[in-house]
Each structure stands twice: as structure tokens, then as C-alpha cells.
């Protein structure tokens, strides 16, 4: 059965140090998801990376979800991994459909460079402070962002 998300160490520690950072917490199939407020994102990242007992030093993945036509429309999803204690954690940030932007994770985890470029390319979400925010998979002159739900699967014709 699905465990209580409040048993997760990351949740307990964050709750103690940054109680304002967590917007919501969910758990499905023993995977904990923390919804973080965008304003406190940078602090949360550094805390999760450096705090003894958590040490999420490996950013496995960054991706996004488009919940169109809901609002807030976008969720940026971060998958963290701790090589020390083998724990995984999912962070989510909710963003509005109008000019979605979120701070870049590159200063905390350099591996975010390509992941964030991919999200920028396919979802049109801006990462503030990213050193090289350009399209990565599609040509520079491509119109639209294909993984948005209002982009037709067969493309515009």
C-alpha cells in the first residue's frame, strides 16, 4: 500500500527548516512528491543537496507537465537521487500558463543544463539564469512547443 508521505525524511527535514517552502505533499506507489513554492525553490534545492542525511547530489531528470486548460497550467518536475542513501524524491513547481518562468537549477546541479534546455524547447518554459538557454532538439526557427497539449500531434499543416 502507499505509504504516508509524511514519513519521508525529506518532508520532515524541510518542514522543520523551511515550513513555508512546501505547498503540498503527495505519495503514490511509495514515491513522494513535494510541491515547492517557486520563491523558495533555490533555498530548498541547496538544502536538499547539502543537508546530511538527505544529500540529493544527483539530479536525475528535469521535465514538465502541461495541464491545459487548467490553471496554473504547467508543472516542472525534478527527479532527485541520493547516491549515499539510495533515496529518490520528486519535486514539482506549479507555473502559470502566461509567460511561465522558474529559476534555473544549473548553479546547484550542472547536469540541469541540457534537461532545462529540453523543457524550454518542448514546453516553452523559461529558466531564469540559465547560461545557454537555446532550443536543443528542434531547429532555432521552429514555431511552437510540441509537448504542449494544445499543439496537435501531427503538427500544424
Amino acid at each position, binding site marked *: 500500500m502507499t505509504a504516508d508521505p509524511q514519513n519521508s525524511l525529506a518532508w520532515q527535514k524541510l518542514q522543520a527548516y523551511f515550513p513555508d517552502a512546501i505547498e503540498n505533499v503527495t505519495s*503514490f*506507489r511509495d*514515491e513522494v*512528491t513535494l510541491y515547492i513554492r517557486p520563491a523558495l525553490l533555490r533555498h530548498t534545492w541547496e538544502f536538499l543537496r547539502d543537508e546530511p542525511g538527505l544529500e540529493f*547530489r*544527483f*539530479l*536525475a*531528470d528535469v*521535465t514538465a*507537465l502541461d495541464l491545459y486548460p487548467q490553471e496554473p497550467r504547467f508543472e516542472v*518536475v525534478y*527527479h532527485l537521487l541520493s*547516491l549515499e542513501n*539510495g533515496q*529518490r524524491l*520528486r519535486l514539482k513547481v506549479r507555473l502559470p500558463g502566461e509567460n511561465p518562468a522558474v529559476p534555473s537549477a544549473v548553479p546547484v*546541479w*550542472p*547536469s540541469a*543544463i*541540457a*534537461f532545462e534546455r*529540453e523543457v524550454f524547447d*518542448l514546453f516553452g518554459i523559461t529558466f531564469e539564469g540559465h547560461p545557454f538557454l*537555446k*532550443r*536543443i*532538439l*528542434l*531547429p*532555432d526557427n521552429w514555431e511552437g512547443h*510540441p*509537448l504542449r497539449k494544445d*499543439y496537435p*500531434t501531427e503538427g500544424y499543416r
Partner: protein
Amino acid sequence: MPVTLERIPGKEERVILSMGPQHPSTHGVLRLVLDLEGETVVRALYDIGYLHTGFEKSFEDKTYSQGITLTDRMDYLAPLSNNLGHCLAAEKLLDLEIPPRAQWIRVLLTELTRIQSHLVWLGTHAIDLGAMSVFLYCFREREDVLHIFEAVSGQRMMTSYFRIGGLALEPPLGWLKHVEKFVKIFPGRLAEYEDLLTKNPIWLHRTQGVGYISAEDAIAYGLSGPSLRGSGPDWDLRKKQPYSSYEKFDFKVATRPEGDVYARYLVRLEEMRQSLRIVEQAMAGLPEGPAKANAPHIVMPERESMKTSIEALIYHFKIVTEGFHPPVGEVYQAIESPRGELGFYMVSDGSPKPFRCHVRAPSFANLQALPKLIEGRLIADVVACIGTIDIVLGEVDR
């Protein structure tokens, strides 16, 4: 305009070189932009996307079962690993129990996939550095593995053999004989490659100390798989977060502390030996029983039962025309593919098609370390560094 590097004022004598995307040693369609001072690479940039096919968008338009065929085509050198990742993610969504026999056959075949994928890597890596015969030897043995895949699934490469709930069908009688034969000859063949390379002075000169990356940098840049283990950390998902009953197998995780091209070469050779051990154990202890889970609303019924049972016929019709409905939720399932952490992030909204299926491709992440490996090195080392991170462009671009 393709990506390019800007010239630095005052450094006009430098040459900006575009390498690829059709360069034979880029293992597909990778393009590099190199800023050269003499023969030294000062800055490097990679340009990808030439094989982008929008798999992640296509997933959203296909049922969970139909999506399996897309995964073959991402990492075309390790199709069964990709099938496994996709199926495990969907099974986690459904909370489905897989019978032991199916799990063991999955382990056996994914380890053969690892050997096969490493053989292609070794052959092409060696030919990039000028060792022609290793390439021919490796492809000889790879063919044996592909014959096993063909016997089992009917396809050499685009297998789509693992299905949600188990296997597509029970492997044919006598298939283990092929595997036994391969297990018998392969240790000798591995020794042959080692004779050609491991102590070969030319090979040592081309690989030792080249493409160095420290363990901290490797973790920071998101390296995983043999590329990470070549720098020291013994991180292997088969041991640390076992899936598909890997915890029941006895094998060692190969690591080397040096962090250069030679270390990663030794790690991959040792991995092939360990994979062979797993294959032997899986063959010896293969459990009897069904190869599909007992979940009629998800797993296709046997052809025979459809002729006699109305329920089987109804389920077949439902699965083919509509698919099945997983509960609302999201899962991330990572497996140790030959290249590293292959993750499937699947989001279900309760409909028969995934709301989102994102692939964390190990090649895409590993490629980020390439500029770090080659900057400050000679241009001749660039091909050694591309080979050593073992990328498949189908998976990079998806």
C-alpha cells in the same frame, strides 16, 4: 542557423571547426563545434536533434501497450532494456505482480542485451582508435546474441518482446540451447579481445589519462552507468534499487577509480563477464510456471482460449480496441540500461493512453560531460572521448 561558437576577439588565429553530423566516428548524427588553437581543443559545443522524432508526443497518442514499440527505436542497440523500462513503469502504475518465470527470462535477455550493446561499443570504439580487427570480432559475437533474440521474439533488433504483465509469448522450445552455446564460447572470445587491446601499447597510449573526469564532476554532470563507475562510485541500480528480481542474482559491480577512457573500457569488459554470470544463473535456476500475469483485463488472452471462452474473447476485444485504465497517478521507474540510468516517468489520468510519458535517456545526460572531457585535449582524442561515453543518438534525440 545551426549552433556555432563565437570567435573571441584577439584570438583570430584560432580555427572554429564543425565536426559532423555525418562524421563516421560520431556514432550517428552528433555534431560538434570545436574551437581549436593549433591541435588543442579550447572550447567545445555539441549540437543534437538530427534524429528527433517526437517519441514523447507519440506516447500520448498511443495506448500503454502500443507505446512499447516506440521504445525499441530509441536505444536501438538495447531494445530489450527499453522494453523492460517501459513495462516496469506501466506495471508500477497498475500495481501488477509479474510471475517469477517472466522476471527471470527478462533478466536473462536484458543481460544478453547488455553484452550485445557493449560489443557494439567495443567494436566501434576500437575502430575509431584504429584497431580494425576487434570490430569484426565483436560483430561476429553480436550476431550470435541477435540470433537468440530472433529465436525468442522473431526480430533481431526491434524485439518488443516484453509486454505489460509479462512476455509476449513463452519462448520456443530449445531456445536455451542457443544461449548455452553462446555462454560456452563467449569467455574465450572475451579473452581474444583482451589479447588484442588490454596490454597493447598503442591502445594504452590512446586511452590512458585521456578524457579524465573526477567522481564529483561525474555526479554533478549527471553521468550514470559504466561512465560513472569508471570514475569510482559503485552505483548500479541492479544492486541499489533492484527490479525484476535482480536481488536474487550474484554478481559484482565493476568499478575503476582512474576516471579515464581506459578505466571505462575495463569497466565495460568486466560488466560483460558479470552479465554472463547472471545469464548462467538465470539459465540454471529458471522457474517453471506462467510467463504472463494473471490479469485478464490487461494481458492478452491465449489464442486457443479465445476459441472456447467468451470472456477471453471479450477481454481481447476490449484490450485491442480500447486498452486498459490504470489508476490516476504518476511513477518514475529507473533501470540500469547498458548506458546508465534509463528512467520512465509515466503520468496517468485514468485513460487508456498515458497523459505524459517522459524518458530520462542516459545518453542524453552522459553527453553533457563530453565538452568537459575534451576541452584542453588534442583533437585526436575527441573521437576517443565520444566513444567512451557510449551514446546512441536515437536515444539522445528521441
